[in-house]
């Protein structure tokens, strides 16, 4: 059995147990884990052995959360540097370099999205956001700094109350924010000018997989003719969906919803706790990426431009993500 550096195992369990959360942070943590794994590699100084080791680290990381596409995308991005490596030391260096590049590019992408997104917000706007997306928070904060935001509604986001994190970040930047229960979205939506939410995964048809509840927020917004913007870095776009793969929706423990004692007292009540839902592209006015504002149906453009070569490897491995092919093993 391969031995992994302690730090790599910590990051993997941090992602699994949702201590590291948010698609961007998960992706950067995964890139960082690959960097650490490369630096602390103590096995045979051989190119093939190193590639195999990196593939197994990549697989370990990908297995931690099934839905968030940023995770495999980050792994693909970092490991792809191994394709052209000719020696062990070149391979190790290129992984470290590529991981650092991913981390800085992804941070740059978020910054760019906050600038583009803020431009889409008119003066005196009220914004509603669901869950906690650090990109959405940055867009809203940027728009607020430009004097365009008068009020933000943040949903509490059961079961884990990520809305409280959103509340904290926005209120620290001085943004006037009010928390509402998830059930009150339609009650306030007439006051809202824009819904701005993040994304965990963008499918090739422009459907957006995001925190459970996003799709009904978008539906309520559409009913009220309130615009819905999804902010998503290009690493949120899923190459697998282009070849027909369905996005797996993860169910988490019932204990996130009700206490264990309640569950034990009511053994015949099943508590279902899906983490994500799918918002169809027709409920989304635009997806804001670091490459610009696109209609959701044009998601495929981002996929082809950023991940075109991955699509070729996917085709040749029968639609499965095969990291061996990514690293040209």
């Amino acid at each position, binding site marked *: 059995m391969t031995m992994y550096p302690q730090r790599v195992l910590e990051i993997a369990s941090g992602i699994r147990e949702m201590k590291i959360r948010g698609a961007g942070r998960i992706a950067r943590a995964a890139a960082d884990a690959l960097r650490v794994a490369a630096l602390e590699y103590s096995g045979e100084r051989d190119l093939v052995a190193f590639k195999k080791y990196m593939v197994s680290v990549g697989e370990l990381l990908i297995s931690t959360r099934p839905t968030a596409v940023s995770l495999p995308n980050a792994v693909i991005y970092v490991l792809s540097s191994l394709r052209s490596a000719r020696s062990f030391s070149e391979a190790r260096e290129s992984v470290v370099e590529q991981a650092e590049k991913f981390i800085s590019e992804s941070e740059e992408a978020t910054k760019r999205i906050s600038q583009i997104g803020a431009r889409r917000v008119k003066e005196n706007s009220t914004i509603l956001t669901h869950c906690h997306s650090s990109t959405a928070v940055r867009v809203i904060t940027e728009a607020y700094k430009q004097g365009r935001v008068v009020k933000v509604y943040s949903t509490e986001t059961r079961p884990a109350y990520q809305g*409280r994190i959103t509340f904290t970040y926005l*209120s620290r930047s001085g943004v006037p924010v009010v928390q509402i229960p998830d*059930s*009150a979205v*339609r009650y*306030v939506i007439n006051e809202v000018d824009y819904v701005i939410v993040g994304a965990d995964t963008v499918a090739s048809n422009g459907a957006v997989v995001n925190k*459970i*509840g996003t799709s*009904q927020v978008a539906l309520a917004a559409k009913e009220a003719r309130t615009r819905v913007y999804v902010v998503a870095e290009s690493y949120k776009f899923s190459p697998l969906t282009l070849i027909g793969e369905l996005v797996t929706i993860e169910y988490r423990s019932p204990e996130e919803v009700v206490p264990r004692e309640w569950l034990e007292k009511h053994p015949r*009540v099943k508590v279902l706790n899906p983490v994500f839902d799918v918002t169809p592209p027709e409920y989304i006015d635009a997806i804001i990426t670091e490459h610009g504002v696109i209609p959701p149906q044009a998601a495929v453009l981002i996929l082809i431009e950023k991940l075109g070569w991955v699509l070729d490897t996917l085709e040749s491995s029968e639609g499965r993500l095969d990291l061996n092919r990514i690293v040209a093993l």
Partner: protein
Amino acid sequence: MVMSKHRGSDAVSFRLTGSELAFSVLDKLYSLASRSSERDLVKYILELKETIMSERPASMAALNMLRQVGLYILRHGFSGVDRYILELKEKYKNALERAAEVLSRRVTGGETLLTNSNSLAVRRVLEHLAKQGKTIKLYITESRPGNEGLLLAEYAESLGFEVYLIVDSAARFFMKNVDKVVVGAEAVASNGAVVSKVGTSLIALVAKEARKRVFVVAPTAKFSPETLHGELLKLPEYDWRKLVSEEEASKLPENYVARVPLYDVTPPEYIDAIATEYGLFAPQALPLVLNLIEKSEYVLSKPLEDVIAGLRTLVEGGSV
């Protein structure tokens, strides 16, 4: 806190459903009518009306009960008022039962229902379904704020149904598995709009999108005659501080501010039918139907404000 200023405070808790509140009002009135002075009874009605209007202004059944008792006193004096209150209670109990039975007939065994909160009328529907031996599956949203969905889940479990508890945000996710949505009501307005636990209108919208039928169980006592005269129903918002325990409060962000509406309005076009004690109607037809039914005192009644003014004159004029 408004509640503590009024003697009626113990009777008006946001934890009570609309129907439970109506019953608690009738019980309190009965005990005063049978034991206290006429003056105390009238003063209590006046106070209770203020309390309900400030804490639960959309709870129509309770307001209609006050109106009916007040009207009786204005028309017939105090003799027999205790008996009349008992009659009202019995009638409301039967109306609830009948409305639930009407709705239960619309549910076929093997179907999957979705509901929210912990409506007494919906509990009655479930009892009828259990009695009829229909096996159903039930999705219940936890229904924040308040989490009354947990109480309904416990009850539905005790009746032997297959129960799925979900967060409010998951209504759209599971709607494709659902055959019918069944909810209770706090009030029904003259255009057929239904005031119910907050989140109901979102569930109804999601159901409409998925082409699932939405049924409301509401005895006619939930109808608001004031809305016929253009009056708007007032929707109370709750102070969030009263909803969180100290332990929870310590986990909240600094400078926390929240808006906590308790009810929302579902437009009539998202409702397929309202089940009442007189049968199942399109929501838009309800005022018409009530006018046609001789016994529909709620529609033909005087505005509550007139009744209250009449009672106030009694107290101020020293006639009680």
